[in-house]
């Protein structure tokens, strides 16, 4: 609910400027300056990095790392500023800044937009700087984590966060409904999507609250359903992004399962119903482990990996990258700062919130040291094993249009008597031209 609120408030500003924003934007004048060892500027520069977190403790951590960098390099930088743009309109606000000729030096980038940003030429290649920075240990980075952010030999963003999706469970509600504890089912090998659905439906019936919530989906952000359909080994489009696969049998089965879980079993909140697991409104939720910080002691909870689907268990991670804009004023200094911000030592600090793509840090003990809410066993099971062979949420060069078009088509699915196969056929018809674009 609160997320929705924030989005709504943001749109007020957007609406107000809509009429003139287009006109007032000026053509940005970017440079193709080569990035390498930064030349000492005539006077120290100010760097700006856009982020979508508004969490004070996270921002404080970033600032302390940045301040240390400024102290070590007073001739290069005089300050590093972190600018929060709300999550819901992040990419929109970022591209509007680019359109206005006001590019930040560094920016967080959503995985869904990765191909679009990586292939656009808007970001500078970071590989030479990261590889060339002494003590960076580039070879420690997990190669599979970098794939999404590479184009040819170039690496256009650093995936600072590799947060696996997992299932948070309200054990109080489940116990009260006399349902089996998912932790035990994981041990017995019985932790499947069907089991999760049955537990959710029974618990919701008993508690009068909601069962299983796929967090941030809200019948809008459909890409979050990847955490479900991956259990069927389904995907919205082919790996090369040219073919629609919504009509593949695996996807039809997965979406039929989801539709029935909502409308037949009442295991999930129906459209127009909001439920926040962390406020105690639901029995279970699928979300990233970084959300553990939202838990207080108002109820007992546990965390388990994603359930197995008919096609077995498929890990899903949510990635976020940080890149340096070519159109920024000081790309070379910004890249040098990024190499410092994400070096082995600082990555360990950042691991408190963002599981790093570093092999040496991906173990239960290292992560537990940074995550007081979770035990080493929980982290081992969910994070360390969760990033193995993990898939990311759907991404595409044309994601903005695909996202909106699929959302509009899938609206027809979120009614009780929907014809799943027909809706998915329509979806493919609508997005095929966009995939071929």
């Amino acid at each position, binding site marked *: 609910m609160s997320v929705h609120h924030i989005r709504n408030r943001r749109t007020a500003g957007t609406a107000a400027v809509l009429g003139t924003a287009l006109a007032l934007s000026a053509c940005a004048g970017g440079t193709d300056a080569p990035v390498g060892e930064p030349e000492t500027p005539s006077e120290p520069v100010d760097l700006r990095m856009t982020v979508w977190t508004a969490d004070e403790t996270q921002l404080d951590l970033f600032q302390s790392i940045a301040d240390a960098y400024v102290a070590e390099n007073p001739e290069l930088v005089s300050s590093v500023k972190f600018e929060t743009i709300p999550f819901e309109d992040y990419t929109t606000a970022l*591209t509007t800044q680019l359109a206005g000729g006001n590019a930040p030096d560094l920016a967080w980038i959503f995985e869904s937009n990765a191909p679009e940003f990586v292939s656009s*030429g808007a970001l500078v290649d970071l590989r030479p700087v990261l590889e060339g920075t002494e003590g960076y240990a580039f070879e420690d980075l997990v190669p599979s984590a970098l794939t999404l952010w590479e184009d040819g030999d170039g690496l256009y963003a650093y995936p600072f966060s590799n947060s696996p999706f997992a299932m948070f469970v309200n054990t109080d509600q489940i116990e009260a409904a006399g349902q089996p504890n998912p932790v035990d089912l994981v041990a017995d090998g019985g932790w499947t999507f069907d089991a999760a659905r049955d537990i959710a439906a029974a618990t919701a019936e008993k508690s009068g609250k909601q069962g299983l919530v796929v967090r941030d989906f809200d019948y809008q952000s459909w890409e979050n359903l990847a955490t479900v359909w991956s259990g069927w080994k389904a995907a919205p489009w082919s790996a090369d992004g040219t073919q629609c696969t919504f009509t593949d049998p695996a996807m039809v089965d997965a979406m039929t399962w989801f539709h029935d879980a909502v409308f037949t079993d009442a295991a999930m909140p129906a459209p127009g119903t909001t439920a926040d697991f962390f406020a105690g409104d639901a029995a279970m939720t699928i979300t990233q482990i970084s959300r553990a910080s939202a838990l207080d002691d108002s109820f007992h909870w546990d965390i388990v990996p994603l359930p197995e689907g008919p096609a077995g268990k498929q890990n899903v991670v949510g990635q976020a990258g940080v890149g340096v804009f070519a159109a920024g004023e000081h790309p070379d200094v910004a890249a040098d700062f990024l190499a410092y911000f994400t070096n082995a030592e600082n990555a360990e600090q950042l691991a408190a919130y963002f599981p790093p793509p570093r092999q040496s840090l991906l173990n239960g003990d290292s992560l537990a040291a940074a995550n007081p809410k979770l035990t080493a066993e929980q982290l081992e099971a969910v994070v360390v094993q969760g990033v193995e062979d993990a898939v990311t949420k759907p991404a595409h060069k044309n994601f903005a249009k695909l996202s*909106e078009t699929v959302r509009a088509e899938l609206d027809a699915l979120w009614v009780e008597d929907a014809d799943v196969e027909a809706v998915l056929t329509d979806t493919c018809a609508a997005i095929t031209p966009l995939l071929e674009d």
Partner: protein
Amino acid sequence: MATASAAVRRDWLVGYTMVAPVVLGSLAFVVLPLGMVVWYSLHEWNVLANTFTFVGAENYQRMASDPGLGDALLATVWFSIGLVVVNIALALLLAVLLNQKLPGTTTFRTFFFSPVVVSLVAWTIVWSFLLQADGGINGFLSVLGAEGPNWLRHPTTAMIAVIIVQVFKNVGLNMILFLAALQGVPEELQEAARLDGAGAWRRFRSITLPLISPTILLVSIITIVGSLEVFAQIDVLTGGGPGNSTTVLVYYLYQQAFRFNEFGYASALAVLLFLIVLVLTLLQWQSRKRWVFHEV
């Protein structure tokens, strides 16, 4: 003579100094952006790749083959018709009712006007909760024994919901305009008609309506132009859905520009919107001679 011309020059200076802020402001924030939108509409502008290429009329040609634009225009027509008809009819009805000399009318006038001064987004967010499947409106309906629809999830009810939310937000302003006009209708004309045996409806039709017709024109123009600019309500309540059922032209323009980074095409859509508003306003202005009393 010299003093006279100095005085003229001073008048001239004072006059232009007085109007300078508004003239400069209009030039900088209205005329210049309008011109730039037209200029942008002739380009393909990719913000990410930082390219700005002249494409001539391509963005305008694209409109002809864009099915999304057809849907958006249709949604805009439905929204505008619904809003204008319901808003003006309700505003006039409320104004007539609250123009009676009865106790409590001031309270009711305040009640109906108050949404006008409420923040639009705050107003819409409250309605988004009321309109949920398990929200206040369906809760109220269930008390009456009726089962309400999931308002924002069905194309027809979503459009109705957006119209109703917008009507209640702004009907108070139109009501006040109508009230002011009604109070300007001379009592002696009503009196004379009454003596001639005219009933209430006849007096309203033959005396009141013609005399308030300039206000009806004004209210129609404001409401129609306002209906074409609806954005925040759509974004907060439906996000243009379900499907594309509530994606009106301004929302479509916003998507093209700020979601899809099609700034050139969005600029062309902005020019289209400008022309639609211009033509509608001119048509109303031209037709005023036929039905606005003071213009006869």
